[in-house]
């Protein structure tokens, strides 16, 4: 029986001093007042995820895209971080 977790949102932070990316899990209810006024950049599984039959597969490429997107957003605020990113920015084709 898996443990029950509350609904959470993730806050990803970067600290340039000790070059640390922090991942915060925050109760979704608490974040809602913040996200209500914030810009949403939606990522649709329908567009980005691999599909096998009727099911989406969150595969390596999907995880890579999501990760690069997070780094890109942080890099807007921290140009030094931008210098460190060597991951391919463009979507990569999936091997079939």
């Amino acid at each position: 029986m898996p443990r029950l977790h509350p609904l959470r949102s993730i806050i990803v932070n970067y600290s340039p001093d000790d070059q640390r990316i922090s991942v915060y899990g925050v109760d979704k209810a608490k974040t809602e007042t913040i996200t209500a006024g914030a810009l949403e950049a939606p990522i649709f599984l329908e567009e980005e995820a691999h599909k096998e039959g009727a099911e989406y597969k969150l595969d390596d490429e999907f995880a890579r895209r999501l990760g690069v997107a997070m780094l890109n957003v942080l890099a807007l605020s921290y140009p030094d971080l931008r210098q460190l990113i060597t991951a391919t920015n463009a979507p990569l084709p999936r091997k079939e």
Partner: protein
Amino acid sequence: MDLASHYRMGSIFNPDPEKKAAAEAGRKMLDAVHPDVWERNADLVQRIEDFLIASFPYFRKGNAHHTLDALRRAVWKGDVFIVEREAEYRGGYVATQARKESGFWGVDNYDEVPFTKEPWPDVPDTSAADWDIWHDANNLAMMHAAVRAAPALFLPMFAQAGWISRYGVPDLSEGFAATESTPLGDAEPFELGESTLSDDVMEIAARGVSEGQEADCYAEYERALDLCTAVAGPMSGERGLALCRANAFDNYQQCRGY
């Protein structure tokens, strides 16, 4: 159903005399017609309306009077020629009985009434859909140019006119990055607008917040578009990016008091 068949007068400077005469006769005939008689002929009005819609993308539907008036004006301007199909009736007197049976055109089947249109030389002479594409391309280019030159002025205008929802939010961030010579590359757009606009009509009509706040809102809007681009970079879908830009624009409008 293609009414806009190939009726060409020859060159503008050297028209085919016979065809020119036929078109002249058609014009006179149209002038001689009592409009109210045609207006009661629902079939004919419908056919004319279909023809006008297919031929002139800017034509807007109205009542029968409006439709016939539009046809008359198009004929007067020389955009449309009317040619009587049956030569034997041209200019001649038609017996009452024959007219009653066959209508004004001397034909029973109005599908074959040869309305013809002289196509303009510099625009596609094809379907209404092609016209739409042609117009959309022009509109899109015009909107981008205008919004680039003076975003504070034109963004709300295009938004209220429904162009934003039709064509999407103009992509300012990438456009600016791509060309160095755009007036807003790194300049203050609102100072430009203030110095070049002498009257304050737009200010009164559109301004919801102060000049300084307006500038802040626009700067925030540009940053928001940066974020959209950052997330969309590794993504392959279009919808996510489009929605992000729409969200950014909504926030921008809200910031400006709309």
